[in-house]
């Protein structure tokens, strides 16, 4: 069924959960890639996609919790989850380091996501055999 040689993927998500379907479609895609024996090297959150790394999202209990589902998936498969620092800081997504640097009242980055620069995206593109983007709809 599948090509015998495994591929590696960098997945880029630019749409926010609960504003777009992007995090959901991306997770379905990533799960299918792993199931097919491929590798997911890295998930890069850009633009409004950084909201997927929020530790404080609290959707109704009968709706999927996309940040937690992504977090569990990343941990289970030891995949790096990176939120773009420029996108994240503007949109109020910060880790403890940024909290201290900007003297903020709290941090809200969900583990295992980390905050880093666009260099992570450039590196992912070079290292992976395919980079697939999931944008917001309309």
């Amino acid at each position, binding site marked *: 069924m599948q090509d015998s040689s495994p591929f590696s993927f960098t997945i880029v998500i630019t749409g926010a959960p609960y504003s777009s379907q992007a995090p959901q479609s991306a997770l379905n895609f990533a799960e299918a890639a792993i199931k097919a024996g491929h590798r997911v090297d890295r998930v890069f959150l850009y633009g409004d996609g950084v909201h997927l790394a929020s530790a404080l999202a609290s959707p109704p209990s009968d*709706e999927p919790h996309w940040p937690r589902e992504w977090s569990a998936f990343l941990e289970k498969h030891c995949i790096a989850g990176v939120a773009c620092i420029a996108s994240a800081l503007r949109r109020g997504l910060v880790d403890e380091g940024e909290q201290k640097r900007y003297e903020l009242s709290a941090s809200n980055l969900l583990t295992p996501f980390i905050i880093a620069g666009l260099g992570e995206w450039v590196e992912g593109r070079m290292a992976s055999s395919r980079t697939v983007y999931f944008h917001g*709809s*309309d």
Partner: protein
Amino acid sequence: MSTLIVIDQPPYGGWAGREALDMAFSLAAFDQPVSLLFCGAGVNWLRKGQEPGTVRQKSVEKNLAAAPIFGVEALLADSDDCNRYGLEPGHLLDSVTLVRTDPQLFAGYSHTAFAG
């Protein structure tokens, strides 16, 4: 002195349509007269046979069917947009009224709002 809430974004790809429904149901809950207008890609909310369980979302079919009971005065749909999306009357949820989205339609409401 009725309010028209307009839904012109398609279902499931975003949350604006749901948030517009919440606005309409809130108005109705406070006994404020309100109608819903579906136009553009928003008419796809009205298609029979949606199975949003496949994208792990809740169906709004029941909510919309119960809209008159909740106090929503009318579910309006732009007839041209229904045609464009291949929505014949038989494909539409019951209790939908086909209209033309023109100045006269909007003149019949004292307020008009989108969810986003």
